[in-house]
């Protein structure tokens, strides 16, 4: 909203600059003769129409009369845990980490995602985290439950090395139980091989 005010201020100043000039040239200037080698006369170029608005003259605010307090804008933060998680995902406060097939090691992309997450978590020490380990469907249910546990813990350990208190982090393995994409393509599987990071609210 400060942008709106700033914009109107610019408009006012511009108008003030234009208005006196417009008054001086009430009649259009004589057509300019354009030298031409052609026999046909050059077309007459009409001058651009000048706006003669009747807007009220801008009033100059008295300088140093009242000093405004610096403008502060307030925003309602998501308080409900679901809203908080939605905001955290869309704004990238916490970012899921993705894995290769049957792997529980962190790729450089996964490390970057967890790095951003660590930064946000360290500045929000009141909020705890749940890491859900997920797998794609191309494995057996029982082994994938164990694999999901390992994936969740590798992220927990990495966040701890980045300075996040491990006591704030819980893990759970969903194995193949809750795929993000129910499809059966490599695209879907890649989405499903992930640590999904869920903010779990205040406390531990």
């Amino acid at each position, binding site marked *: 909203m400060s942008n709106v005010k700033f914009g109107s201020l610019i408009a006012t100043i511009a108008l003030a600059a234009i208005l006196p000039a417009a008054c001086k040239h009430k009649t259009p200037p004589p057509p300019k003769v354009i030298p031409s080698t052609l026999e046909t006369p050059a077309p007459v170029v009409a001058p651009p129409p000048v706006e003669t608005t009747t807007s009220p003259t801008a009033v100059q605010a008295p300088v140093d009369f009242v000093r405004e307090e610096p403008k502060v804008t307030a925003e309602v933060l998501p308080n409900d845990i679901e809203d908080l998680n939605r905001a955290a995902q869309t704004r990238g406060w916490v970012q899921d980490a993705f894995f290769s097939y049957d792997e529980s090691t962190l790729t450089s992309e996964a490390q970057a995602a967890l790095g951003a997450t660590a930064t946000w978590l360290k500045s929000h020490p009141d909020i705890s985290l749940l890491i859900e380990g997920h797998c794609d469907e191309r494995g*057996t249910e029982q*082994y994938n439950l*164990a694999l999901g*546990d390992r994936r969740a813990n590798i992220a927990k350990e990495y966040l701890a090395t980045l300075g996040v208190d491990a006591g704030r982090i819980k*893990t759970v*393995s969903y194995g193949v139980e809750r795929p993000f994409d129910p499809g059966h393509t490599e695209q879907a599987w890649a989405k499903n091989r992930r640590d999904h990071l869920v903010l779990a609210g205040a406390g531990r």
Partner: protein
Amino acid sequence: MTSFHSIGNQQSTEQRVRQRPVERRPLRSPWRWRRSPALLLMTAALLSAMPAPSQTQITPPPIDRSLANQTVPIAVPYPTLNAVPAAAITDELFGPLTRDLAISGVFSLVPLPPGAGITPEVAKRAGAQQILYLSIAYSAPAPSSSTAPQASPEFVIEARLYDSTGVSGLARSYRGPAAALTRMAHIIVSDLVRQFNGKPGIFLTQIAFVSDRDGHPEIYLMNYDGGNQRRITFHNSISVLPSWSPDDERLVYTSFARKTTDMYIVNRNGGGRIRLNTGLNLNTSATFSPVGHDIAFVGSVAGNPDIYLIRDDGTNLRRLTTTSSIESTPEWSPTGRQISFTSGRSGTPQIYVMDSEGANVRRISFEGEWNDDASWSPDGESLAYTSRVDGRFQIRIMSLVTGQSRIIAGEGSNEQPGFSPDGRFLVFQSNRTGKWQIYRARVDGSDVLPLTFVGENKDPDWSKKMP
């Protein structure tokens, strides 16, 4: 198949299809190549081990040793109905009863000429050595007290078995409400089979499984033939991997009910639920020891899943594997002396076996880059497990004696095999129809029969005893 048609001429097409699994045909049958030597030996052993008949029972016909590798041809005329609706009898009693007989491995059904009045002579001419007469009537239940409201009438089923000379081998009466008709059919065939080989068969066994048909994955039970499917957990969360106790009275499973994975034990009727507090993560793949009170399961500390034991009262936690790799999916041998499990220590998930104290670990599976879900045959000589072949999961059965293995081919992915308590059948899950459903097949892979149809169904576990 004509035999079934003429015996159960009121059965539906689906039932006739399901009846295809006649295991033992007379020698003239073109299907006899299906017989496996192991089954023949087993039957011979069972027949010779038949207990002496008690004084109150009429002696069963003497066993001709030369026929020991054959089934007993039995004729079952459609029962006499005394003012009883035929539809209920056909669907809930006669159908299940003849299907049980057909897959019993002990009897083979004999085709009968159409029409009523099948005498033992007629049945004998048709090739039957035994004939089972059923007589069905309504009866008012015995009044429990004079003030109690009148209960609905009960069925009384009389079963009489005669040999071809007219000598009675079994005469029993069974009484129960209409809802128990199918159970009565299973009990009758159990009694018949026990009469002939000393063991009751699998007709009263149950299969536990997971279904999301009511919205959430919950634990269900069903009869061995898919009948009477019923829910026993109500977590409204994700509950998976049920496993029977050795006495078939309880089940242990894993639920996400508390946003983490915990082990629960519940009675077979859904009551008496307790949660086992292990202090570990995961708590998956839980399985009762066939002896004692231990439960093997996968626990995890700091992302290192290993095989652990805990008593069924939540005490005496022990760690069996100590490697840094993933260990999963323990399963006890029938004697409780060994435990199979899955480990990623070689780089891919493979099947291993160790002593139940954790020593003497040896690798079992070498083929395929992903093997899991090992399950022991009741004789302890084979493992069935999930094995990836050409990118698809298939059921592989490996002989621990010879080290040879074979694949049971099937469409789609086929996972989580388990043996029936008599070792003749497998239950497993397959997504061959696009959804996960539970199937039953013979151990040779023939006669695949779907048992579930609604929702997605998985994690089958066959009960352990033959009641």
